[in-house]
């Protein structure tokens, strides 16, 4: 186990290095580089800019600049927001809980429903249910999330008035669990919509794969009941790839969350990214990019470890 963890951590570290290279590349892709926002300030002179460039180390060789940028990132000095001067990490961590709340609720709903649909679809392959589920999943994967969100708002908030049209809680009411839940329902369901499709498709395919395996025939030849074959013999095997899926879905979930947050004015990290882009608040923008990539690496790492624990074939010696 220690060996496995060690080499897996090294692998993540190597990926993190590549991620940082990409991040650094993007910073320097910004028009005018990291100085861009000052260039627009009225009254600033070319000399001022050159002085600032020197102070920020922009006139040095790229590898040195990268090294300094990396040390700052690693020591937690992610810079300050241009907008309000707060530390970038503070700004991001202030918004992250709302996003995680949305993502976790959405995923939870999606996994439960998606796995169920997938299993039923595989067991009753080519049935009416399976065909409807397949078509439904394909359509769900094709609907733009933001549009779906708008339709939900139009129907349930504008027309029926059942659900609030946005925000995390009623302004001024101070919240309370039910109010909070009331606000969460619509965005979480919209986010779950696409995820249900993904999970059901993967689950169906994984289950189909498993039930055509020789060992399922062996179980049948032993006289094991169909129910027990499904839940004891097939399900465990079919769930193994799902753990990996959970690990790689995080970036897609964050993408979905950004759009959902925009439509429902949900105060999460996605909205923060959009707002920061509007203000050209590059330190925050870069922070969000890096944080989300790090979260994705972390998710992957956890999924791999979970898979190693669950699957007896992956030896942990």
């Amino acid at each position, binding site marked *: 186990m220690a060996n496995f963890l060690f080499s897996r951590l090294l692998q993540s570290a190597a990926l993190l290095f590549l*991620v940082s290279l*990409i991040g650094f590349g993007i910073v320097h892709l910004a028009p005018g580089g990291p100085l861009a926002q000052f260039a627009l300030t009225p009254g600033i002179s070319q000399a001022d800019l050159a002085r600032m460039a020197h102070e920020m180390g922009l006139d040095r060789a790229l590898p040195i600049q990268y090294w300094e940028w990396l040390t700052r990132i690693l020591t937690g000095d992610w810079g300050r927001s241009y907008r309000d001067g707060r530390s970038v990490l503070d700004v991001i961590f202030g918004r992250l809980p709302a996003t995680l709340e949305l993502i976790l609720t959405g995923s939870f709903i999606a996994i439960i429903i998606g796995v169920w649909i997938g299993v039923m679809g595989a067991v009753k392959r080519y049935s009416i249910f399976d065909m409807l589920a397949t078509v439904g999943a*394909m359509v769900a994967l094709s*609907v733009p999330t933001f*549009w779906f969100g708008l*339709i939900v708002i139009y129907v349930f908030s504008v027309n029926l008035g059942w659900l609030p049209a946005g925000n995390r809680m009623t302004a001024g009411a101070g919240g309370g669990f039910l109010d909070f839940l009331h606000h969460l329902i619509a965005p979480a369901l919209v986010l779950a919509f696409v995820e249900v499709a993904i999970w059901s498709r993967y689950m169906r395919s994984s289950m189909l794969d498993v039930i055509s395996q020789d060992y399922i025939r062996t179980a049948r030849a032993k006289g094991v009941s169909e129910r027990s074959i499904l839940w004891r013999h097939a399900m465990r095997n079919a769930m193994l790839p799902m753990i990996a899926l959970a690990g790689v879905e995080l970036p897609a979930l*964050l993408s979905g969350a950004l759009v959902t947050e925009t439509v429902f004015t949900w105060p999460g990290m996605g909205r923060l990214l959009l707002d920061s882009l509007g203000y050209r608040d590059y330190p925050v923008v870069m922070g969000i*990019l890096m944080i989300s*990539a790090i979260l994705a690496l972390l998710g992957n790492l956890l999924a791999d470890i979970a898979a190693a624990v669950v699957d007896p074939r992956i030896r942990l010696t």
Partner: protein
Amino acid sequence: MSFETALDPLSTSGSRPAGNRAWRRFRRHKLAVFGVVAIVVLLLACAFGPLVTPFDPLRIDLRHRFAGPSFGGNLFGTDQLGRDLLVRLMMAGRISLTIGLCAMVVSTAFGTLVGIMAGYYGGWTRVLLMRFVDAMLSFPQIFLLLVLAAFIQPSIVTITLLIAATTWMEVARVVEGQIRSLRERDFVLAAQAFGAPGRYVMMRELLPNAAGPIIVAATLAIARAILMEAYVSFLGYGVQAPTASWGNMLNDAQQYLGSAPWLAIFPGLAITLAVASFNFAGDGLRDALDARGDLH
């Protein structure tokens, strides 16, 4: 010589391998056929529709603002400036579909190149390329696309390239996996045994056998690219007014959701129809070409 040398009677002598069978399977896949028909109709409508309708997509007519959909006049209604929504949708479709197709071409070409190199050369080449793919995939696609689009002056060309830059990784993964498994096959070893150089092996032995999954991935890449364009344009960093795309039409429509819902409904339906059609076609192709791989 003996009894086995005579060929069995063959029905499809000289046909492309499995070509007919693939076509038969594809035709049986009703959704895929629907997808292809819908794609053709959409393409034709966007290409020629604006030429045959009586409405000018650019003419502003403030007296006819927010006219609801009707069979007599504007079929899909009019927008906040009194322009006919149907013609606007077709004009926007030209942009959105073009971006989708072009982004697919770029991302498929680049992804295939990376995948083939990684799969064929293996070793450190593979490690570096595929870890780079992994690193790119760690970033949420929309985040990356938005940030890049915000940094670079948006135009139709740059948006297309940016979408390609953020979507080629899936193709690379599919191709790499295919090539890596094909590379172990005996016919590739046989080619090496008779002295075939690397380029011959890649172009003649490997690539044709990976064509199925690449075609499927390309079809799905169009769907994804159309969706991505819609996302960035909706969020305001994609195609800019006055050029209409399905995404930025929805951006405009957002504020009139209560009063003129058709402004939001029809562009969304157009996106869904286009994306779903390509997804259906891709799914049918996957079954027909028997190219099992990633799901979406």
